């Protein structure tokens, strides 16, 4: 059989290079595995988006026009993923991503774009409902939210859940996307004496918020919950001592014992000597989905691949997963983790235990997607 090409457009240089590096590794695992399984050459092509939408689109355009690549799995940042999705639709290709922006399978959804990560609605529901149940005394909540669409999405979902449960959102601090200093917001938060501090930002900002919250002694005074954690990388950067006792909502965790995950962990350890983190795992499963769909369709023809993906149910990294045909959202579990004390860690990556897992999704109509 002829060569199957998958483009991996991820930030390899620039501010999100860490994610790009792991994503590239995950994609390679998926390709190698598929090549062995299907007995055909499968190759991944890293496309460095530099984290910039314009560069991302240019690389994707070139890959489609010049290198005839029809399958793309990647996109870490919302802006680049949205733009690449559009480009794949225009250029006749398919794209699957793990990016956070709900528009991807919401208002800006399109027939060429798929998304593996759980939207903000599910993330919030799966993070805070278990906590509300476990901590009936936690009445007063305070949120820290980045001011843009992603943050608004998380905040909206939070408000809905709290209202439903009759709990009080005693305050919210918006901050800019470039903010690094959270002491002001944290002081405001402390003044409200909340029972729970819910952190709705992600990545480096989330790490900064947590660090500073812990230094203000907030861990001792309230429960801290991060709705959208980036997984193992984040724990490594923060360190176990700092994280201990904090709740983290996560798309993926390497100790999940379901579906393909044990296999992936073994494979990753064998090849790279590490445990898979979210970037690696997400990229692995996205790439795998694309390859499998192309194999099932018999070619990488965009329409055929799309047809193969729509409605597909499969064993994924979180157990049984399925691709919803109406908006191309993958339905999968979201996890709530609680960080362990350093002394309780079984190995160096055993930062947290899984408290709960489950699925919550808006209907495609409620998410605002109309596939044309």
């Amino acid at each position, binding site marked *: 059989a002829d060569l199957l090409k998958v483009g991996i457009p991820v930030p390899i240089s620039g501010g999100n290079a*860490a994610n790009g590096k792991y994503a590239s590794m995950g994609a390679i695992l998926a390709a190698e595995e598929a090549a062995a399984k299907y007995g055909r050459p499968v190759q991944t092509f890293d496309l460095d988006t530099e984290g910039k939408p314009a560069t991302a689109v240019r690389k994707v355009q070139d890959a489609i026009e010049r290198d005839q690549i029809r399958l793309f799995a990647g996109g870490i940042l919302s802006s680049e993923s949205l733009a690449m999705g559009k480009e794949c639709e225009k250029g006749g290709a398919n794209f699957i991503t793990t990016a956070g922006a709900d528009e991807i399978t919401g208002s800006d959804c399109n027939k060429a774009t798929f998304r593996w990560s759980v939207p903000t609605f599910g993330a919030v529901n799966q993070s805070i409902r278990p906590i509300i149940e476990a901590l009936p005394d936690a009445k007063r909540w305070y949120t820290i939210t980045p001011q843009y669409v992603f943050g608004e999405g998380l905040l909206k979902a939070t408000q809905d859940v709290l209202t439903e449960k009759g709990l009080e959102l005693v305050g919210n*601090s918006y901050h800019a996307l470039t903010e690094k200093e959270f*002491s*002001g917001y944290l002081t405001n938060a*402390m003044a409200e004496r909340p029972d729970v501090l819910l952190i709705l930002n992600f990545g480096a900002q989330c*790490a900064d918020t947590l660090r500073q919250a812990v230094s203000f*002694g907030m861990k001792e005074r309230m429960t801290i919950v991060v709705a959208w954690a980036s997984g193992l990388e984040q724990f490594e*950067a*923060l*360190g176990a001592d700092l994280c201990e006792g904090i709740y983290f909502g996560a798309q993926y965790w390497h100790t999940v014992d379901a579906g393909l995950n044990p296999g992936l962990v073994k494979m990753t350890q064998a090849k790279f000597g590490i445990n898979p983190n979210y970037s690696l795992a997400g990229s692995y499963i996205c790439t795998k989905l694309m390859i499998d769909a192309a194999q099932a369709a018999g070619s990488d023809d965009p329409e055929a691949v799309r047809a193969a993906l729509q409605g597909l149910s499969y064993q994924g990294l979180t157990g049984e997963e399925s691709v919803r045909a109406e908006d191309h959202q993958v339905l999968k579990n979201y996890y709530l983790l609680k960080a362990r004390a350093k002394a309780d860690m079984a190995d160096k990556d055993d930062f947290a235990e899984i408290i709960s897992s489950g699925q919550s999704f808006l209907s495609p109509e409620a998410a605002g997607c109309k596939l044309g």
Partner: protein
Amino acid sequence: MLNGIGLGMLYFLLAVGLTIIFGLLQFVNFAHGAFYLLGAYLTYDFVERGMNFWLAMALAAVIVAIVAGAVEAILLRRIYKLPHTFHILVTVGIALFIQEMVIILWGPLGGSVAAPEGLNGVIIAGDFIYPKYRLFMIAFTAVLAIALYWALERTRLGAIVRAGSESAENMGLLGYNTLRINTLVFAAGAGLAGLAGALVAPIRGVEPFMGIEALSIAFVVVVIGGMGSYLGALVAGILVGVVQSLMATIWPEGARLMIYLGMAAVIVLLPRGLFGRA
């Protein structure tokens, strides 16, 4: 308010090294953020290896100063005479180099540095809660500010440095070895940036792109305060810190906007910044 001052002190510390280099050597140093980055990472590395925080901090600052001194002696002294364009080009190049080296050496992920023993935790006085380490940082920076002020404004050294920046040739005619003075000043300025990075590590952790943000803040502070003015760096640092903290509660998305608007207004209205000398 205390948050603002704490932040301001941090900004002062970031900016003061830049002011020394930028104001006194008339040199636009876009690599300043990279030295800050390096200071933070060295501290992180040393602490990870089990070194005492204080020692790590001092060592990091000294190493950064030595690195910067070497960079100056090997590279920068060849370009002082060229227009600003080339200062920017070279220092941007150095900044990129250091940043990428940091990623190569320590990976792209970043990490946390624990506050030193005894400065962990918070001070509580009624409703007032403040991390000990931040209080310490304010005090430390204040002492440093006074010491620096004395060293640079009240001693001949300050005058010598400024004179050397204007005309190395004429300083030579007066018997000064300006090459060495320049190297020392550059190293000191960069060392301060390294120290700032080391001090900040327990608060902000370390990550490879922290230098870029630091640089832009440092620029704002130096420009608002006035080139070459320590007092300016101090006042502007605190001003920016306080404004940013206050804005954060009033109109958070606009906080940065206000700072840059303020900076533009200051340069347009007050040619030399708040405290710049003519």
